[in-house]
Structures are given as structure tokens and as C-alpha cells.
């Protein structure tokens, strides 16, 4: 393996990625329609209840009427949505402080996610998670 070629490739990679980020900027956010569309694609039999989108527009938790005992999670990664159906076993712990909720997940590619929310939404989401997992803790006590 040629060291010059490797280093040259590394420089080219950084330049190409920089150009891609400038030429194709991400301005998208999650909204109810995008969340339900993606979740239905991921699980066509899902019956969607309330949708809670965080303040950054990058995460959404979804109450599901079906499948039972599942919670929807939609995340905007770059410009594409990543969906999960979470069961109680998928959530290791939940931490809440005054403006954020952090989920620690059994998911190698996204072990932890943090949702930033207004007070009203935060309370609704905390209630949803409390009922779903019984793992809600205060972040300060953690």
C-alpha cells in the first residue's frame, strides 16, 4: 500500500465531504407528516397515536396503538429518517432534567439519544415513557 496514495486519498475525502455539505445543505426538520410516513414505511401495520417532536426537529417519539407494547422513535440523521420500534427491553434507562430527556438504548448504532423539549411536551413525553418503561429517573440523581 502506497502511503502517498493513502494520505492523498484522505485529503480528497475531506475536500469531497466538505463540498457535499456545502452543495447539499441539510435544512430539513421532522414534522408530523414526515414522522408518520417514515414510521409507516418501517412498520406498515403501525397504528400511530400522538407524535412528540423535539425542539431541534431531529427526534420524535411516537405513541403507538399498535403494535402493542411498542414506542416509535424517528430520528433525522443527516437528511434521512431512521426509525425504530422500541420495546421496554430496548430502553436501558431514561433520564430527565428540566428541559431534556435522555434515552439510553440497547442499540449499538445509537446508544444514547437526547430530546430537548418545551415544558408541556416534556411532561407528556415523561408520562408516556414512565408508563411504558418505569425506568424514568431524574438526571441529577443519576
Amino acid at each position, binding site marked *: 500500500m502506497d502511503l502517498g496514495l493513502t494520505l492523498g486519498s484522505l485529503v480528497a475525502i475531506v475536500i469531497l465531504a466538505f463540498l457535499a455539505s456545502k452543495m*447539499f445543505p441539510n435544512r430539513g426538520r421532522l414534522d408530523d407528516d414526515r414522522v408518520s410516513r417514515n414510521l409507516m414505511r418501517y412498520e406498515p401495520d403501525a397504528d400511530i397515536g400522538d407524535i412528540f417532536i423535539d425542539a431541534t426537529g431531529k427526534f420524535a417519539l411516537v405513541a403507538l396503538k399498535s403494535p402493542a407494547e411498542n414506542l416509535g422513535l424517528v430520528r433525522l440523521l443527516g437528511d434521512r429518517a431512521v426509525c425504530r420500534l422500541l420495546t421496554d427491553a430496548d430502553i436501558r434507562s431514561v433520564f430527565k432534567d428540566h428541559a431534556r430527556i435522555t434515552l439510553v438504548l440497547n442499540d449499538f448504532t445509537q446508544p444514547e439519544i437526547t430530546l430537548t423539549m418545551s415544558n408541556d411536551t416534556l411532561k407528556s413525553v415523561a408520562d408516556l415513557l414512565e408508563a411504558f418503561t418505569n425506568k424514568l429517573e431524574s438526571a441529577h440523581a443519576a
Partner: protein
Amino acid sequence: MPLDLPKPTEFAVPAFIFFVLVEMIYGWKTGRAKFEGKDSLTSLFMGLGSTVSGAITASLTFVVAYWVWENFRIFDMGASWPVFALALVLDDLAYYWIHRFGHRSRWMWAAHVIHHSSQHYNLTTALRQTWTSQLTPSFLFKWPIFILGIEPAIVFFCAGLNLIYQFWFHTEAIDKMPRWFEAIFNTPSHHRVHHANNPKYLDSNYAGIFIIWDRLFGTFVPEDKNEPCRYGLVRDLGTFNPLRVAFHEWWGIVTDVWYAKGFRNKLMFLIAPPGWTPDGSRKTSDMIKAEWRERQEKAGHKGAASVAPPEKAA
């Protein structure tokens, strides 16, 4: 003394970079190709990592291949141009089966999944390659070519040409090639189907250069304009971190095997199709396709039955 042949992929690197740039500008101008900065960075970095990991294990691969060729070959085919042509075809056939098992056995999928882990389909996706193919039994698929009597250096050279051929069709910028070309060769249209996670398209079009292998072995599915391709995995990754991308499926196998009860279940987590579980709590591609077919039939759609039938577990 082994034949000293150039490594085609190393010569092609500047061309790869140039054409990624061309596609990016074309997509920016026309909207017919889409990129995302972090996704492109991850794809390109995975490509570089793949080159490094390949170089680290190249000597071992080379020594084992020559050991097979020197001790078990039936003929000595020499190094004439017809032998190079034959090697290109046979290597492509071996690639088809490596690729098919790469989708149908979780052990090999753990390495190959990286190539499918982008939700974009552009020339950087072509370079999103595994770091861990050396941990799979894929090398065995080329042994019959060595045993037939073709020198490993020729086969490796042709494998390099095969990889270069596969670069150009990772694009949405090209719609269809001429009909005769679409009939014989792998094309952007055929390979878009292969990268799509729509249930209709799962486990199809495994070809490298010649799409005839898919037509021959019953895995060909044409692109349907009424079913636009959506790229990525049935369970997309939640990260751009190259280390997590490279090893996520291996980690999944290790944890599943660790917690599985009984030797049979442990073994099946390694060799059964991705998504297999003893209790059916996750879905294999066959299960996803069957559910999709059922929904289509309920909705009265025609054409659902024309999709390739589910494969037996590899």
C-alpha cells in the same frame, strides 16, 4: 514465481475522486443526484479503511491462494489473453455467489452490510466498503478457479477490474442503458434495485459485471418506475461513526450468540439469514417480502406474485 500484475483499483483512485466530483456538480446543477456531507464522509472513509484492511491481510490471502493453486490445480492454464477473459467471467460468477451468500448468511452479511448502510445512492456509496471481509469464508468461493488452473494473480487482477466496473453504476444520474446492454451487463438501473430496501426489491440483482447470472439463477428483478427505490437497510443505522458502522453487525452476532440457548441456535445466529431468531421476533427478508405480498394481494394489486419467490436459507 508469481505473475507481477498491477493493482487496478490503485490506478483507479484518482478517477474515482474525479467522477465523484463530477456527479456532485451534476447533482447540484440538476437535482438528479443527491449527497449528504456526513454520509459522503463516512462512505469515503469506509473505502479508505477497506483498502488499509485489505493491504494488511493481502500477504496471507496471496499465500493461501498460491498454496491451493500449486497443490491442487487440475490444469496449468498459463497467462494468455483468453485465460484473462475466462478468469474475468469465472471471477464474476464467483462474485455472484459470494454476494448472494453475503446477503443470505449473517456471517457474510456482517461484512457486506456496510456497503448497504447508506441511505443515499451515489458514487460515494460504491466506495463504502467493508473492513472485515477477511473474517468471512468468502475466499473459499474463488478456490475452484485456482483448482481449475488459473493463476491467483490473474484472478486477483480480474477481481480488481470487476470492482472498478462496479463503481460507475452506483448512481441515480443515469436512467437506463441501451436494451442490449441492460440484457447482458449490470447497470445503474439493475443495481439501484439491489440497493433498495423496498420489500419488492430485497435479495435481488447480485451481479458484479454480468447481470446474466441473476437471470440464470432466478434472482433478477427489474426496476419498476411505479416503485421508486428507497435506499439503505430494512433497519437503518443511527450513526455516521465509521467504527460503529464497520462493526455493528459483528457486535449483534456476538451478543446474539452469547445469549442464545443451545448450540443450534448459536450456530443459526451465525449462518442463518440476517433477521433470523429462534422465536421469529425479528424479520428476515423472506418474512418482509411475504408480508408485503400479503398486503399487496389484500389491496388487490397485480404483480406482487411476479416478484422473485423467497429463497431458502443459505
